């Protein structure tokens, strides 16, 4: 009889707790420390998963290289480390502009924030143009995704990264339209992630021989 009483009591207590929870407080707990980082905690879940995916790509690239170092070295000569280096500095500069955009919104300067976001996006666009020129040069030389394992991985990894740059440009446009502090922090966090990934992709694909 006592057990029956308990099974009746528990749901009643649960409902009471739900009703008692203060409105709008659902975001205050359960993020495991992610709430101390800039932007919405969910962007950090995305950042972590993207880093794992690209990290796996880079490790696979290095592992496959062990099997055919001569082939990889020969194919790598078709890449332009200078173009990759210029793109790295372009993305680093765009990251700096994104920091300035965040500082502007922190000080309530919305116009300044939009200008810095525009500069960030413009540099992202320049990155894509350099990348498209690189792809164009490869295609003109008869190099495609099917040419070799090196170029399959090259087009796959850099193409996937370029897609993230395009997505980042879209996100920067959206947060530029609605420049609340949380939006800017979340959008620029995504952009810095794109920057971070390129900083690791560039040396592994272009420089290590």
């Amino acid at each position, binding site marked *: 009889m006592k057990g029956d009483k308990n099974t009746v009591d528990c749901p009643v207590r649960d409902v009471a707790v739900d009703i008692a929870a203060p409105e709008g407080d659902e975001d205050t707990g359960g993020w495991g420390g992610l709430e101390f980082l800039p932007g919405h905690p969910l962007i950090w879940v995305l950042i972590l998963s993207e880093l794992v995916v690209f990290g796996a790509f880079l490790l696979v690239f290095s592992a496959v290289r062990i099997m055919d170092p001569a082939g990889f070295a020969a194919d790598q000569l078709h890449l332009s480390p200078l173009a990759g280096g210029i793109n790295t500095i372009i993305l680093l500069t765009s990251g700096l502009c994104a920091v300035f955009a965040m500082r502007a919104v922190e000080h309530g300067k919305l116009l300044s924030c939009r200008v810095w976001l525009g500069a960030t996006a413009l540099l992202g666009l320049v990155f894509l143009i350099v990348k498209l020129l690189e792809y164009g040069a490869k295609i003109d030389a008869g190099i495609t995704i099917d040419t070799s394992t090196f170029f399959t991985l090259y087009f796959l990894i850099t193409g996937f990264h370029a897609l993230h740059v395009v997505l980042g440009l879209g996100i920067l446009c959206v947060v530029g339209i609605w420049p609340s502090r949380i939006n800017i922090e979340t959008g620029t966090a995504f952009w810095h992630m794109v*920057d971070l990934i390129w900083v690791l992709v560039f040396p592994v694909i272009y420089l290590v021989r």
Partner: protein
Amino acid sequence: MMEHKTVSARTATWVWGVASTATILALAATFEQVPGGALIARFLPVVIIMAVASTKAWLILRFYLGLRNAQGSWTGLFAAFLIVIVVGVVFAQAAIILIDQ
């Protein structure tokens, strides 16, 4: 959600300067790589290139992405990610050199 203090303009510019210079340094190290040369001449540039890359990545994480505000466990997780990438790439280079010997 918590309010976060963005890094100062001076620090952000300093980080950009260091990262850009490091990129040029890594490019220079690339041209120092000698295929078929002495063991150290083939191994050292890769270690330098990856050390430079991980330093740049750490600067971005800490100052641009705001990881300096994070709890130790999150900082450790991102550091572990970088270590795995660097060790993986350097290990692959060591394996290539050893197979080639």
